[in-house]
């Protein structure tokens, strides 16, 4: 009687030791490094890095959302991004704070640029090229339209312009431009 109890206890202890070792090893081997939800939320955000949410970039905002901040603070992402964020966080969609605007890109009127480099320092994605006392210009493809360069310009030579529609980015029928109908037809 006594021996069987001892055998059972020993067997259980051995099993516990084995599984404990296994769990301990796998916790080290398969460790998840960062909080994956922050990365996921960051990937949903439009990466304009405009700071309209009150955070210094998209990633800090993603971090803040994961810690319980509202999901409606991203006007560049608009309603669509807000809904995605709300769905991911498992909360009700909220009304967007701020106005959803069509995307614009910065344009420097080069005649008026004095080469102060203030806009270059303001640009969060290094989309402005230039040097001290040299004319600056915006790399159109890299501009996120955050408007952070507009305010620091001492000569007010930066305009926010709508993106030009070309045959490359034209949307079938969605933006059909009415052309002149030839009356001779």
């Amino acid at each position: 009687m006594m021996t069987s109890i001892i055998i059972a206890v020993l067997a259980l202890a051995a099993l516990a030791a084995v599984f404990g070792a296994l769990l301990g090893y796998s916790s080290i081997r398969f460790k998840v490094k960062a909080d994956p939800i922050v990365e996921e939320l960051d990937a949903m955000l439009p990466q304009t890095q405009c700071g309209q949410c009150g955070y210094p970039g998209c990633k800090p905002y993603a971090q803040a959302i994961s810690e319980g901040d509202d999901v409606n603070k991203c006007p560049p992402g608009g309603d669509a991004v807000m809904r995605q964020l709300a769905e991911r966080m498992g909360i009700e969609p909220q009304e967007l704070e701020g106005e959803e605007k069509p995307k614009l890109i910065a344009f420097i009127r080069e005649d008026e640029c004095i080469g102060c480099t203030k806009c270059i320092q303001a640009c969060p994605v290094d989309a402005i090229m230039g040097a001290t006392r040299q004319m600056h210009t915006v790399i159109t493809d890299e501009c996120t339209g955050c408007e952070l360069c507009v305010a620091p310009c001492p000569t007010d030579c930066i305009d926010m312009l709508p993106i030009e529609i070309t045959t490359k980015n034209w949307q079938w029928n969605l933006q059909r431009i009415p052309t002149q109908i030839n009356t001779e037809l």
Partner: protein
Amino acid sequence: MTNNFNLLSEEQLDSISSGKLWTFHGGIHPPENKQQSNQFAIRDAGIPATLIIPVEHKGHVPALLVNIGDTVLKGQPLTKVYGAMVVQHASSSGVVVAIEKRCDLHPSGLSVLSVVIQTDGLDRAVEYIKPQAFNEVAPAILVEKIQQAGIVGLGGAGFPSHLKLAHNDGIKLLIINAAECEPYITADDRLIQEQAHEIIEGVAVLNHILRPELTIIAIEDNKKEAINNLQEALQHSVYKDKIMVRIIPTIYPSGSEKQLIEILTGKQTPVGKHPIELGIVMQNIGTVFAIKQAIIDAKPLTSRIVTLTGDSLQKRGNVSVRIGTPIQYLLDRYWVDSIAVNQLIIGGPMMGFTIENTAVPVTKTCNCILAPTIKEMPSAPAEMPCIRCSECADACPANLLPQQLLWYSQSKDHDKLNDYNLSACIECGACAYVCPSHIPLVEYYRVAKAEINTAKIEAQKAETARLRHENREARLEQAKLDRQAKHKAAAAKRQAQMKEKNGGEDLIAAALARAKAKKSEETTEKPAKNDAVAAAIARAKAKKVAQAENREAETTEVDPKKAAVAAAIARAKAKKVAQAENRETEIAEVDPKKAAVAAAIARAKAKKAAQAETHKPTQTEVVDLDPRKAAVAAAITRAKAKKSEESPANETKQDEPDNSEVIKQRKQRKEQARLHKLEKAEIVSQTKEAEKTEPTVAEIKKAKIAAAVARAKAKNSENEEQQ
């Protein structure tokens, strides 16, 4: 590039060359409507007054070789290109009158950069130098020549030909597409009928470039004449063993690249892959003709065959049109019935698009201009809901599920659209053709495709923006650290240099130590300084008090006699006070404790008075006259000194004390004034009595009481101040 897994095997090639044909899923048989235009020989459309030659390629602007005002010849290159772009040439001689954005032949009707040439009607061409025989030239050079000749796929898609020919290793099968399955269009049909020999030569050029194991010219069985001519030309050609003509059954869309490959080889091109991965290259027969002209005749692509058809046109048929000819020019020349015309379709009725602006030019991809009447092509009936009849799925040549794609296109579910392989849709329009609900399915797919494309581009841009932002943050952080390190290093270096210069002594450290020592000295001196300040303030206050008293003294001095009397009285009073005090001590003997306290107070007062005297020597007399007053003043100064000591930090504030202090001072001054008045009244009354007689015992008593009262008051005010 090529994947061996997908490549055609020798067995497959054998069965292909044996003449076996396969079929693709679905397909439709729309009315052909080809006989309206294939009965007439190809004519030259003539030289329009202006040519508009678009030079932009999908938003890329090449370098221009001409300026406004330049005279250009036919065949002269207008652009210098790189990558996927091909050279654009002047298609007739004339003068460049404008380089500006002009409406392009595109469903969007958007403007692209174009070179506008005012023609001179002479059609002078650049000199075409007969080149070396093509089979002596390396394939890569020929491919380069094809790019320089401006050749793109003339079947309708306009894919740059040099890109298709650039990878020429491991090519198993070359297919020349002469299927021309789309209704109405007969451009290739007529070209084969008239230029069969040249086409065979063009195929030989391609054979030389690609070196395929098998070359097939695929042609639909509805083009009897073309087939005859082609076979005849091949029989008389030296290449007859290398090239075979394959007649395929007429079914739409057999001319689509992937469907034609399936017909000829039985193999499906995997989704998202190119036929080149199967070892197959396909070229349109019109392109082959253009390649022949470019390589053998050194003539760049300056014109193309366009089918002009539709019941609205009085003269139908195929014409050779110079690239850049305005469509309105063609419509005028071929007698369009401007009343009957319903719409203008570029391309065929299945895959073409309508245009509204007839000033747009004919481009290299424009194979047909269809001007139907309303009777011929009535406007589409109203769209009705999908009944899920699956007719579209049966017709789809790409084996897709159009009804599902419609569903997800409407709900903009991009993930599901990807799951259902929307990207494999060739937009042939077979589904819309068979749809009993008249749903323009292809329109939905095109919109969805554009949306997916945009979303993809946006996602890519967001990703680059994120990376750029992160890189920038990292760079700024690094720069900050670098700067700090640099400053540190510079400081260390300076120190070392200094040490070296001064024989191992650290001057800065020494200076710093000195400065520190000085500072600590200052801090010890500070309280003394504060005391000095307080003393100065006290002096100033005392002076003020003295002045006030002097003023009062002046008023008394009006009567010198009186003053003298007052002085005498004061003296007497002082004596009396002393006496009274003595007496008080006597009385106090009864209560020794009380007496001791009183004595202490008196002593303190005397001391204070003495102190006050040292500070204001000018006032000695006054103080002598009234020690109690002096005591009050001294108390005030003491209080002030204490206060200033309490707040040594705000030295500056002492110059302009805050309100509470001002109020306190004012209160003290008032109290002083009141005491002073009382004193004065006493003095006056005493003088009067002194004039009469010696002070009586009663008077002495009175004086004693008054003195006690004054003392009490002084004590009171002292207490107040302490509080």
